[in-house]
């Protein structure tokens, strides 16, 4: 079950996805985090972000929409509080980084590069829930290339680029990221969606649109992983609607070397553990 992705050694190929696991603190009360393949943190931005107004969550058929808006305490608090907490564990830590501008990304990447406890960096160029930056990078191959190049220059840590599904051809972005030196690609982030309350006649989310995740998007995610796995040579990490070991294995058959579990953490706290256990049958 052990694998090495982009130079990061993991006990098993099952990580928890950014934004669904915080910085591990809450879940550490429920099980031993060292059982995970890796923890991908909530997106960290240079400055604290207070996130979007509520409601931020709405359920949809076999899925959910969120518009958290990258709420986080910013780099400084991450380094002072969250990263030291994670030092109590040996599980690999991949820090997900987001920003509005290239410089913001680079500043965070630089700071993280100095930290021993950071095993890898995931560049979130695919968050659909912020007005500026982020997904703007992930839907434009030129901006993707620029950003990844800059991040690679700024850091010796493995750089994983997290791709957006909200594009016509995801392989174009994937190749741009690879060309720029990405050590691995992870996909997919959420798909832009929307829900309207027919009683109030208003959008259910304060931000109107949000990102769709959960089993509903699995077929789209599997397709994109399959497309990207054929288009690039770097390892691909599959994300999107993984609830069971069977789902995880499906992504591996599509070409993923490892997977991340997101929404499933909300449905069953133990799902990453059950997926790890269940995967033993298959790999």
């Amino acid at each position, binding site marked *: 079950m052990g694998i090495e992705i982009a130079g990061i050694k993991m006990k098993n190929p099952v990580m928890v996805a950014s*934004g*669904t*696991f*915080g910085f591990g*603190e*809450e*879940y550490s*009360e*429920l099980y031993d985090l060292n059982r995970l393949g890796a923890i991908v943190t*909530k997106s960290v931005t240079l400055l604290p972000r*207070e*996130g*979007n*107004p*509520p*409601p*931020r*969550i*709405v*359920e949809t*058929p*076999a*899925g*959910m929409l*969120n518009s*958290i808006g990258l*709420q*986080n305490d910013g780099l400084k608090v991450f380094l002072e509080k969250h990263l030291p907490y994670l030092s109590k564990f040996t599980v690999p830590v991949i820090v997900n980084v987001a920003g509005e501008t290239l410089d913001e990304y680079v500043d965070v990447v630089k700071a993280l590069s100095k930290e021993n406890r950071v095993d890898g960096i995931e560049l979130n160029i695919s968050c659909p829930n912020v007005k500026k930056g982020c997904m703007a990078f992930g839907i434009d191959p030129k901006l993707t290339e620029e950003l990844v190049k800059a991040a690679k220059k700024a850091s010796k840590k493995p750089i994983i680029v997290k791709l957006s599904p909200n594009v016509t051809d995801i392989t174009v972005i994937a190749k741009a990221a690879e060309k720029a030196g990405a050590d691995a690609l992870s996909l997919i982030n959420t798909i832009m969606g929307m829900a309207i309350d027919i009683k109030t006649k208003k959008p259910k989310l304060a931000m109107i649109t949000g990102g769709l995740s*959960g*089993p509903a998007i699995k077929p789209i995610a599997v397709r994109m992983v399959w497309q990207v796995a054929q288009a690039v040579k770097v390892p691909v990490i599959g994300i999107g609607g993984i*609830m069971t070991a069977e789902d995880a294995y499906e992504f591996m058959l599509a070409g993923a070397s490892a997977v991340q579990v997101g*929404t499933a*953490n*909300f*449905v*069953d*706290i*133990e799902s990453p553990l059950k997926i790890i256990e269940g995967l033993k049958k298959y790999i």
Partner: protein
Amino acid sequence: MIQENCRIVDHSQLAPRYFKIVFSSDHIAKTARPGQFVNIRVSNELTPLLRRPLSIHQSDPEKGTFTLLYETIGYGTELLSKKLVGSELNILGPLGNGFEVVNDIALLVAGGMGIAPLGFLAREAIKSKKDVYCFIGAKNEGLVLCEEGLKSLGAKVTVATEDGSRGEKGLVTHSLEKFLKDFRLTIDGKRLTIYACGPRPMLKAVAAIAAQNNFECRVSMEAYLACGIGACKGCAVDTIEGYRMVCKDGPVFDAKGIKWE
């Protein structure tokens, strides 16, 4: 906090859309505090996908059981209402901060299902020898919950129904205001805290009344939850200190801190 399969040991209907359900769980029964809640997986299907949060109404550490009161609102609570005694549901809890009773007088204001967490609070407050006043608001007589139970514990109960079919006619906040007018004078030294749970407009009104009278006020807030444990930042409530999480920083907040807008 634990995630476990809990057996339903009792389940009954209280009113057309009100239900009471009792689960067995040593851990939750022993550790739950008033104002905390559990997050229930009402179905193993993919729709509804997320858990449903319900406040703990009562917990019996000896028997190892805890009780919830709920209203059927939509799909999830409808499904829950059909679960049979003896079956098991996966429950995460106890969650949230819960109420803290600090002053000598506890004034509880419940709107509709808001009685769910306040029932637990009343019991604990009486146990620790506080004076407990309960204001129970409901649409009509059939939807008044817990009146007798609270009275027999020793709480002073005022009921208000919108149609006047029981107790005072009108909104519970109106009864509260009326009561406080005279009562303020008699408190002499003892300090009073208002605890409220119910629809947001009611909480807002209670918060205003508390502010006017310069009383402490704690409200139990609702939001759509995803993780339920503070990890996803989905359940934000806007406070004067910025967004706070209903599931972790709450559900109980100081009413002064909430941006009611």
